[in-house]
């Protein structure tokens, strides 16, 4: 009998305690960050995005030497790079930071529908061309808009140029073959 009344009392009392807590919160300042109006990059408070946040990748084509190490490091193989070897004497312009380049990067494609944003590629890159940015607003209506070809985007090589270097390399190969055949 004592337990019965105790239970009934506890039922009412703990409910009242809970109600006191919730009414307390009713008049507290709310914590919501109103996203489109307050952007996380605005440095609005402790919730804002740090500068090392891992979001969309960016490739600086002026820095890329086409070494393919990011593609090898990528666990999901979302980076596909096509390069064309340059013929001697027709080397691509050097890197913006001064290094030498031997490869024409004719295609640098990152499929952001596959990327897992692990930042292993940025670690592997010897020149620091591929970096993680804080840009995250790139939702789209079309899946194929999420495949970024940085060569096209940055216009580092035009289609004609790609065709030209490819042709040059093919010719170079032919000549080499000839040279290899001639000594016989």
């Amino acid at each position, binding site marked *: 009998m004592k337990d019965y009344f105790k239970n009934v009392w506890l039922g009412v009392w703990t409910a009242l305690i809970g109600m006191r807590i919730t009414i307390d919160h009713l008049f507290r300042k709310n914590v919501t960050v109103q*996203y489109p109006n307050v952007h996380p990059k605005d440095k609005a408070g402790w919730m804002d995005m740090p500068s090392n946040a891992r979001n969309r990748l960016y490739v600086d084509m002026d820095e890329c030497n086409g070494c393919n190490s990011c593609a090898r490091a990528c666990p999901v193989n979302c980076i596909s790079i096509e390069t064309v070897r340059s013929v001697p004497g027709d080397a691509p312009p050097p890197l913006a930071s001064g290094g030498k380049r031997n490869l024409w990067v004719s295609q640098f494609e990152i499929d952001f529908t596959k*990327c897992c944003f692990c930042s292993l590629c940025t670690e592997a890159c010897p020149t620091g061309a591929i970096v993680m940015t804080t840009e995250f607003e790139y*939702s789209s209506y079309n899946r194929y808009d999420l495949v970024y070809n940085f060569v096209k985007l940055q216009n580092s090589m035009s289609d004609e140029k790609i065709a030209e270097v490819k042709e040059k390399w093919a010719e170079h190969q032919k000549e080499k073959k000839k040279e290899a055949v001639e000594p016989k």
Partner: protein
Amino acid sequence: MGLLNRLNDPIGLDGIIFGTVEDLLNWGRSKSDWYLQFGLACCAIEFMAVNASHFDMMRYGCIPRSSPRQADFVIISGTVTLKMADRLKRVYEQMAEPKYVIAMGSCANSGGPYWEHGYHVLKGVDRILPVDVYVPGCPPRPEALQEGLILLQKKIRMEEIFRKRKRLAEEDLANQMNYK
């Protein structure tokens, strides 16, 4: 809220009346999106975070419903496996028209990290459902999902309700003419 911007529409009186009504209807649908409580994988945790106090999905008029019948859109938040694909399709079919799909995260977009060796992973939810908005990220930030949501609302606002049938019929006719 732009209800009257169709007044400038050069279609005529039809356009004014239907355009205004259409705008109102679209406005209602875009501002009151009830979503299906449906979490699949990692992205579901970020999806829950979007519901939580800091991001508060309800600001957009999104109220969680656990029955697909009452939901307006579904957020595919995570990897869809082949075992799940049939069930997902069924859940989608149970939803009442008009219905929308947001593919959240890499896995839903194209299989994500599992696209290469995942023998049991559906490589992209668009193979079974018509996806309206693709939100990239693995998992996307809560803000990124909110951006996807705003895109979806924009899409709903642009929809045609009344003239769709007429337009489709006209297009059909034109196609037939071309065929002849």
